[in-house]
């Protein structure tokens, strides 16, 4: 029987590797970049006056470096439970952004799976998942990738903070390693920015995060994310009439009726 159908472009783009292998591979460079941070979080727990296992257990129960540092910092300084929780949630309000970002991506996944998968959701996993899912439409392969990448990061984080807690103050500082994660995130941000509105969202988000981050680093990140999102929407709205006019001009020139303006690349992605 002759094969007449065209190959599935999604399979061609991503099917060379299993979702599990792709997830582990995608997360590997980010894990390498997180080595200094993970060791630092573990060492912070070891140096504090908290019960020995609290710091390490926070890698499981809280799972998020910035939030862990906030919690340990307040408790170690003699803060109350309420103050510690409030400080942690002020930092972890960023998780709402990740959840909101995954909402359309998880629309075709079972609700129970979404609830469980949300536990693993942190910045690096959000980054690799958004990038991967742009070229992978199969829900089962998406789940496999997400779980593989998320579990890789979770295990690595647990081990790194454990090593940091064990080594305490005897830790080397290698600047190039610390910059690995931002550079990987930079590439993923560029890949995620489709068209001019996407580029504006990226640049504004980064700029506001830097400016506001001088006051409060984690809230600055949230401010950057929200402002960048709004800037992308505004730019998209401005660019739409221009696109429609261009389509009408072309239609007039060739003597046909104008077709509806296509949605911008960022909206379509």
């Amino acid at each position, binding site marked *: 029987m002759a094969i007449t159908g065209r190959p599935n472009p999604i399979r061609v783009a991503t099917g060379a590797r299993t979702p599990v292998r792709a997830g582990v591979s995608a997360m590997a460079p980010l894990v390498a970049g997180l080595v200094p941070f993970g060791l630092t979080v573990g060492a912070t727990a070891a140096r504090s006056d908290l019960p020995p296992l609290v710091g390490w257990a926070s890698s499981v129960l809280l799972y998020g470096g910035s939030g862990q540092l906030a919690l340990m910092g307040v408790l170690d300084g003699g803060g109350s439970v309420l103050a510690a929780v409030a400080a942690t949630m002020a930092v972890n309000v960023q998780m*709402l952004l990740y959840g909101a970002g995954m909402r359309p991506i998880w629309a075709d996944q079972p609700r129970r799976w979404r609830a469980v998968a949300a536990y693993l959701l942190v910045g690096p996993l959000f980054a690799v998942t958004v990038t991967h899912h742009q070229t992978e439409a199969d829900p089962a392969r998406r789940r496999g990738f997400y779980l593989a990448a998320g579990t890789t990061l979770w295990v690595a984080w647990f081990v790194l903070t454990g090593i940091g807690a064990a080594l305490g103050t005897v830790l080397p500082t290698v600047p190039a390693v610390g910059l690995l994660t931002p550079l990987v995130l930079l590439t993923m941000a560029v890949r995620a920015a489709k068209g001019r509105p996407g580029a504006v969202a990226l640049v504004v988000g980064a700029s506001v995060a830097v400016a506001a981050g001088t006051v409060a680093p984690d809230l600055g990140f949230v401010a950057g994310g929200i402002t960048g999102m709004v800037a992308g929407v505004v730019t998209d709205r401005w660019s739409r009439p221009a696109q429609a006019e261009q389509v009408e001009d072309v239609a007039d020139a060739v003597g046909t009726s104008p077709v509806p303006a296509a949605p911008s690349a960022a909206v379509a992605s």
Partner: protein
Amino acid sequence: MSAWLALAIAGVLTWGAKALPSTVADRLPIPPAVERASAFVAPAVLGALTARGVTGQAMAGDAWPVLAALVVAVPVAVRFRSIALTLAAGSAALTAVSLVG
């Protein structure tokens, strides 16, 4: 005991913040404007994440090598969209400026 209590409460609330938008809030009708805005979550949040990471590195030590790495890495990332090339270019610039400085 209070440390464990704080950890447990913060852990549950953090998980709730991650899960809420995709489990509970997905039952609610989303206005078109919000739906449109969600298309820009990824570039905005990833851009902010990158900025926070770079700023953190710059503030942790000498800022010039980090700035040099960024100046070299951004065009490479935009041009090639390759993680490996961006890492290579940024790390090389960081190392070179660190050695010179």
